[in-house]
C-alpha cells in the first residue's frame, strides 16, 4: 500500500489538472469558468491549496482508523483468525517465543553484570539501580540489544528498504522497478553485482564438489562444517583470490582431503568470518524475502535471494550507526553494549568519563519512558478481549505484543500518504458530477476562481529588473 502511494507521489499533478479541466462541461457556466481557470498557470495554486486541505483531512481519518482496520483485516466478526492471516499470526507468535527466550538469557547475563557494577559515584549507582529493574531490562532489550542481534526486523526492513530505494522505485502498481533516472549508472552497478553473484555461485559449486572429499576429523572437520553454512561461498567470493586458494588449501591423506598444516593458524579467523556472515544473512532473510516479493524485475528478485547480495546488504545497512545483527546472542549483545558504556576499574565496572552526562540524562529519560515497557496496551485490549484464540489474545496483551504492535501500526500509519494526484481525485469526487459543479460545491468553486483571479493580478507585477531604482 505504502509503495503504491509512493508511486503516485512521483506522478506530477499539473498535467492531471489540465486533463481534468478539459472534461468539464461547456454548457455549465461555472464549470466553463473553472476549466479556463485551471488551464491557466494561476489556477493551479488555487486548486492545490484546496487539495492540500482535502489530503490533510483524509490522512487524519485514515490514521484514526489504523487499529480497527488492522483487526478487521486479520480477524472476522466473531474474533476468529482469518485463513489468510495465519502466516502473519505465526510470525507474531514466533517473535514472542524468541523474545521470551531472549529475556530469560538477558536476565541471567544482566544479573551477573550487576554484581560487577560499582555503587559509586552516584550516576553509576543510578544506572545500576535502573538496570536492575524489569523496566530497565526491557528498555535495554527493545531499544539496544534487539538491534544488535538482528531481532528487530521492523527497523531492519525499513532500513533495507531505504537502502534499496537508491536503486529501485515503485511503479504505478506499487511494484518495485529499477530507477529509470539513473539507469546507465545502475547498469554498471548491476553488472558488478552480477559478476560477484556469478562468482559466488561458482564457488558454491566448487564447494559442493569439495565437501564430500573433506575429512570429518579435527580442523578439517570444523572447516567442513562451516563451509556447509549459507554464506560460506559469499565470504570466499568477497576475496578475489580465495577460490584459487581453496583448491590449494588441502592435501590428500588416507584418501581424504585435509587442511594443510600451515593454514591451521588462520582457521579460527575464517570460521569466525563464515559464522558472522551466515548470521547476518539469516538476519536479513525475512526482510529481503518480503521486499523481494515486491520486485517486478525477475533479475532483482533473484539477486535478493542470493546469499552474496544479502551479505552485502547486511554489511551495508546501518541503524543509528550500528551494524544490524553483529552479535550472535543476548550475551554477546550485552557484552558489546557494556563495553561501550563501562570501563573496568579495580575489578568493578564504572561508567566511562566521557559518557557521564549522557548516562545521567539517559537514565532520567529512560525512567520516564519505562512505563511504556511495563504495561500491555490499553488500545489493543478491547480488540484482544474479543479474540477466540487464547494464544493470540495473550500475545496482544503481552509486553512484547505491545511493542511489536506499535511497530506494525506505526508503519501502517506512516504509510498513509496521499499524493496530490489522489487529492485531486478526491476533490473531483467531492465537487464535480459528470463534468458539472455539484450544487453544494458552487461556493467552494467560486472561491477557487476568485483566488486564481487574484493570483493573475499579482502576476501583472512582472519585472523586478535589478537595474531599475
Amino acid at each position, binding site marked *: 500500500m505504502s509503495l503504491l502511494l509512493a508511486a503516485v507521489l512521483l506522478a506530477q499533478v499539473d498535467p492531471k489538472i489540465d486533463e481534468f479541466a478539459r472534461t468539464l462541461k461547456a454548457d455549465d457556466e461555472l464549470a466553463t469558468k473553472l476549466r479556463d481557470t485551471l488551464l491557466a498557470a494561476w489556477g493551479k495554486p488555487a486548486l492545490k491549496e484546496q487539495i492540500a*486541505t482535502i489530503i490533510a483531512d483524509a490522512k487524519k481519518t485514515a490514521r484514526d482508523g489504523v487499529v480497527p482496520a488492522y483487526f478487521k483485516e486479520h480477524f472476522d466478526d466473531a474474533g476468529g483468525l482469518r485463513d489468510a492471516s495465519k502466516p502473519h499470526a505465526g510470525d507474531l507468535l514466533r517473535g514472542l517465543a524468541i523474545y521470551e527466550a531472549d529475556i530469560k538469557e538477558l536476565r541471567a547475563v544482566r544479573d551477573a553484570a550487576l554484581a560487577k557494577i560499582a555503587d559509586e559515584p552516584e550516576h553509576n549507582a543510578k544506572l545500576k539501580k535502573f538496570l536492575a529493574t524489569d523496566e530497565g531490562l526491557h528498555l535495554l532489550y527493545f531499544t539496544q540489544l534487539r538491534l544488535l542481534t538482528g531481532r528487530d526486523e521492523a527497523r531492519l526492513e525499513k532500513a533495507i528498504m531505504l537502502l534499496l530505494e537508491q536503486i529501485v522505485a515503485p511503479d504505478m502498481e506499487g511494484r518495485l522497478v529499477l530507477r529509470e533516472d*539513473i539507469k546507465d549508472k545502475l547498469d554498471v552497478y548491476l*553488472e558488478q553485482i552480477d559478476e560477484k553473484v556469478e562468482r559466488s555461485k561458482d564457488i558454491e559449486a566448487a564447494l559442493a564438489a569439495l565437501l564430500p572429499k573433506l575429512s570429518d576429523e579435527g580442523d578439517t572437520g570444523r572447516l567442513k562444517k562451516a563451509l556447509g553454512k549459507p554464506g560460506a561461498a559469499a565470504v570466499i567470493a568477497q576475496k578475489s583470490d580465495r577460490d584459487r586458494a581453496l583448491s590449494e588449501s588441502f592435501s590428500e591423506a588416507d584418501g581424504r582431503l585435509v587442511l594443510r598444516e600451515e593454514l591451521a593458524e588462520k582457521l579460527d579467523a575464517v570460521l569466525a568470518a563464515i559464522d558472522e556472515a551466515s548470521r547476518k544473512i539469516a538476519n536479513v532473510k525475512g526482510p529481503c524475502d518480503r521486499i523481494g516479493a515486491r520486485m517486478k524485475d525477475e533479475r532483482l528478485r533473484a539477486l535478493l535471494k542470493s546469499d552474496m547480495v544479502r551479505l552485502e546488504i547486511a554489511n551495508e545497512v546501518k*541503524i543509528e550507526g550500528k551494524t544490524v545483527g553483529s552479535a550472535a546472542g543476548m550475551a554477546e549483545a550485552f557484552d558489546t553494549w557494556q563495553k561501550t558504556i563501562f570501563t573496568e576499574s579495580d575489578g568493578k565496572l564504572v561508567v566511562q568519563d566521557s559518557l557521564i552526562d549522557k548516562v545521567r540524562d539517559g537514565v532520567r529519560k529512560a525512567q520516564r519512558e519505562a512505563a511504556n515497557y511495563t504495561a500491555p496496551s490499553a488500545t489493543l485490549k478491547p480488540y484482544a478481549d474479543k479474540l477466540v484464540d487464547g494464544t493470540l489474545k495473550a500475545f496482544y496483551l503481552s509486553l512484547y505484543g505491545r511493542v511489536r504492535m506499535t511497530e506494525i501500526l506505526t508503519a501502517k500509519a506512516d504509510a498513509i500518504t496521499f499524493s496530490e494526484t489522489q487529492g485531486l481525485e478526491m476533490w473531483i469526487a467531492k465537487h464535480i458530477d459528470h463534468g458539472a459543479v455539484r450544487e453544494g460545491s458552487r461556493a467552494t468553486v467560486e472561491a477557487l476562481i476568485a483566488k486564481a483571479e487574484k493570483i493573475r493580478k499579482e502576476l501583472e507585477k512582472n519585472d*523586478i529588473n*535589478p*537595474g531599475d531604482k
Partner: protein
Amino acid sequence: MRAATFALLAALTAAAQDAKPATIDSILAETWYEAKLLPQARASDAEFLRRVTLDLTGVVPTEQEVAAFLKKPDRTAKIDELLASPRHAEFLANAWTTSLYGYLNGNDTARAPLEFWLRKAFADNTPYDKVVRDLLTGTGRPQQSAPATFVGRYYMENGKPEEIAVKVSRAFLGIRLNCARCHDHPFDKWTQDDFYQFAAFFKGVERKYIAQNVIEIADSPERAAARYYVQDLKKAVKPKFLSGAEPQTAALRDELALFVVTNRQFARAFANRLWYHFFGRGLVHPIDNFSKKNPASVPRLLDFLTDEAVRLKFDVRAMIRTIVTSKVYQLSSSVAKADPLREKLFAQSLVRPLAPEQVVDSIFRALDLEAAMGRTEMLKSRERFIQFLVRNQLQEDLTSVFEYRESIQDVMTKMTIDLSRARTGKGFLASQPSVERIYLAALSRRPSARERKTCDDYLKRGGSVEELVVTLLNSHEFTFNH
C-alpha cells in the same frame, strides 16, 4: 584600409537595420561600429570545431571527427549533430548540477539523482521554466524524487528558509539578494524586508528526517500558516515577491515558482547564463550579479536574448542554437594582445580555461582510453580525477562559475603521465600514432610545418611518442577553450 572597413561595417549595419529584424550579429555589429572596434576574423574550421564540441559536449573531438570535419566543414550541420547527441544533454546536466548543487553531497541529499534528472530534462528539451518550476516545488525523498534535491540541499534542518532563498535568487534571477540578509543592500534597491519576505515563501517547507541520510521534503499547510518571525527585524514577516506580488493561497512554493518564471528578470538571467556558457563572460558579469552598479555590457543584446527566450518559450536547445550559429560565436580568439573593451563587447572569442570535467574527459578521449579501460574503470578514474582537480573548490558555491580557475598544471602533468604510462599497451598510444594524428587527437588540428619538423626531429633522436603526447596535453592550448 581600416577606414574602408569601418565604412563597410557601417553600411552593413545600416542595411541590416533597415532590412531585417535584429539578430545577435546585427546588434553586435552596430555596437562595434559605435565603439570603433573591428571584430576578429572568423575562427578557422579546426578552432571552431574544437570550441563548439567542447561547449556543447564537454569534450574535444576525436581525431577522426577532426579529420572528417576539415574535409567537409559544414558548421551548421555539425552544430545540429552535436545538439542531438546524448553527450550534449549529459554535459549540460553536469554543468548545471554543479551550478545548482555544487560538487559535494550534503545536507542528506546527493548530487547524482539531480544530475540524472537534469540530463533527462535536457535530452527531452524540457522548457527551462518548467524545469525551474519543478525544482522550486519538488517534494518527496530526494533520492527518488530528484527535483526535491534542490530544496533539500539548501533548506536547513532547523527550518530556516534563508539559504534556499539566497540560492534561488542567485541561480534563477541572477540577483545577490544575500547582501540584504543582514542589512539593506548597500548598492541596490533590495531591503532586508525584501529578503525575508522572499525567504518566507519557503516557510511552509517541511524537512522530515526519515533515517540516516534520508529526508523527505513536503509542504505543510500548518507551517505555511504559521508566523515567520525574523529576529533581526524583530517582527513576523509575510511572503511577498520582489515584484511586490503577494501569494493568495497556502500553496506558497507553487505561487513563488509562478512569480519567478513569469518574471522578465528570470528570462534575462537565463539568457545571460547561456551566453556566459558559450562566451566565458556574461553580458552581465558575474552572472549572478544583476545590479544597477553592474549594467549589461551590451544592453540591447541582452534585451534581444531575453525576448528570444520568451518568444521561444524557454526552449533551451533553440536558444543555444541561436547563439552558436551566430557569426559572433564563430570569431577567432587569436589576438596579439588583450583588450578588455574588445572582450567586453565580444569582438573576439574569449580564451577560457576548461571545466574540470572537460579536462578529464578530453584527456580520456585524446588517449582513447574509454574503449581500452572499459566503462566501469573509466568512470571510477574519471570521478577520482575530477575530485582531485576540484579539490580546492569542492566546498564552494559555484552558482556563477563554470570554468576551472585555478592552476591545474601540476595535476594535469600527474594525471596524463599516470594514464599514459599505465596504458601504453592499450588505446591511442598503442597504435603508434604519427605526429599528425597526435596533433589531431590532442589539439584538434594539424601541426604546422614547423611543429611537424620539431616533433619529427625529436622522435628521430629517440624521443618517445608518450612524452610528446603528455607534453601536448599539458600545453595551454589543450587546457583552454579558445
